[in-house]
């Protein structure tokens, strides 16, 4: 009995997803390009030409990737037993993924607070958050010291010694 199984391994799965994302991206980009305004100076279509070519290229390349991966999976599945692969979900939210997401959120807050409360304070919060994330509450002394020293050190280094402007705290002005 010939069973036509389709069981990609992890890398093939990510490649298939990437190909799919790529196709969507290519089509979206092409549509956006077509809705760009015509140029008032020079040839009206000029600004669209290059992006249009890119959008089409992206879609074609992603489709090619999709086809390539599908063919690979078919070839592999014929040889391999599908039960060898332990199927997790497509997005197992592993520990390090959560850390990345938290870091990104931390970074967004960093950006939001940056100009408002000044470099030293916002960096202290950001770095403290990151260090806490990785070192846990027990190491709070390390976290505190490193964040403080880093924020102050970099501030003094850049602001005073190197002449690069960094935002100051609102009232204290440091």
């Amino acid at each position, binding site marked *: 009995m010939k069973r036509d199984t389709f069981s990609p391994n992890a890398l093939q799965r990510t*490649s298939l997803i990437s190909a799919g994302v790529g196709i969507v991206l290519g089509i979206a980009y092409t549509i956006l390009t077509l809705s760009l305004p015509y*140029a008032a100076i*020079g040839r009206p279509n000029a600004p669209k030409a*290059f*992006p249009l070519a890119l959008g089409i290229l992206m879609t074609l390349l992603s489709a090619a990737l999709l086809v390539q991966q599908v063919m690979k999976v078919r070839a592999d599945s014929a040889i391999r037993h599908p039960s060898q692969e332990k199927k997790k979900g497509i997005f197992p939210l592993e520990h390090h993924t959560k850390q990345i997401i938290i870091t*990104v959120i931390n970074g967004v807050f960093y950006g939001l607070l940056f100009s408002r409360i000044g470099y030293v304070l916002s960096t202290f919060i950001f770095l403290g958050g990151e*260090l806490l994330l990785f*070192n846990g509450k027990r190491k709070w002394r390390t976290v505190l010291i490193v964040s403080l020293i880093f924020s102050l050190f970099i501030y003094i280094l850049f602001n005073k010694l190197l002449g690069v402007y960094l935002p100051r705290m609102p009232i204290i002005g440091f």
Partner: protein
Amino acid sequence: MQGFTTALQPINIMWVTIGGVLGTIIGMLPGLGPATGVAVLLPLTFSMGPVAALITMGGVYYGAMFGGSRASILLNTPGDGAAVAATFDGYPMTRKGRAEAALAISAIASFIGGIIATVIMVLISVPVARFAVKFGAPEYFQLYVFALAATASMSKGNRIKGFIAMTIGLMIATIGIDPQSGIQRFTFGILELQAGIDFLIVIIAIFALGEVFKSFQNIKEGKINVQKDFGRIWITREDWRRSWLPILRSSPLGFFIGALPGAGGTMASLMAYNNEHQLSKHPDEFGEGAVEGLAAPEAANNAASVGAMIPMLTLGIPGSGTTAVMMGALMILGLKPGPLLFQQQPVIIWGLIASMFIGNIILAVVNIPLAKVLVRVLSVPPKVLYPIVLGLSFVGAYAISSSVMDFYILLFFGVLGYLLAIAKIPTSPLILAVIVGNNMEQSFRRAYTISDSSLHIFFDSPISITLFILTLVSIGFPILKTVLSSYRTRKGM
């Protein structure tokens, strides 16, 4: 020759040394390599004059490469792709108790490789620059196409993915106000995007943030056990006897590979390793601690990084990630890399070259006795170091652009870099595309306008035709190889 007087000023020597030490420290951190080091430390150079800035950066560049080798030899964790070959024989040497010799030969080989490469560079850069002046818009377009195609085609792994990376990079490059027509493209109404996305931010995001994100998976390893007590760091006469010829052979090889777009330190060091393996009288020792197996890739590696500067300085096309960052720095300093730079600002170029000589010497000197001290950095837990690198990246980004918007762009591309790494999509075609994308499009349009809307201008001059053929070869050759090899396996040969 004025360059030497500039470079030899005490203050500049100090900068080279500081840059070198910092670069070495960052280069030693696993997962972060010279590109990250230069990207993160770059903003420190902003308030210095252009010469001092370049000199410091040269120091960082070199330092990071020396540092990357330390990690490879002592910990089997290469700092970047180019240091991988150093793990083949370097780490076994450490395990055999020969860490001192390994560190020494790595420093010596890198030093000689760098000097030879710098000499070659001095000899050929002016003629190349003169040749480059002949490049007009059509030639530049063909050149960019070639560089991108070669980089995408030769990237590790799946070639389609390489081209997809290139296309993504080009799409990123189109964001902003189109210079020739003034209309906004893909800015989504965000003011800060009108100037486009600075490629330096993309580089910092992918090389620093992306790498740190990738390391989150392995960050559990608390303290790393590093050999801290070293004997005298030097090599035996026998080591030298076996190594000097491989070093001399690998240096020019490394230089020329480094100068090619699409190939860099990684390819250079691997090729040198393979080369010496085949030529060696002790082939069985390779992989077990053969000293020439370490010397060759180290020499090639340094030579390649010097070689990579040639296309960057003369044509404005960076030959590697690190040179891309240096190019960004040059542009921020107001110097536009290209043949005109040689004509208009020779002092700066020669200052840079001279500082490379001097940097080489200083770092070799510094690294040998200081290895013990520097290695202590490796025992700082990564859980503390990596957040610091994140902090440095944000500061660096702000120093470049003074815009908080770039924090978000940094995060976005950092995550993108991480996702690309998971999907095994190579990042170098993407970065090169972001850098040259704008110039590429503008050269095309300019050439097209000059030629009155006909395409034959792209095939008019011998340079253009040669580049076009090279492009076809770089795309076609690997395809040909795969087709031929699968044909052979099917025929059961």
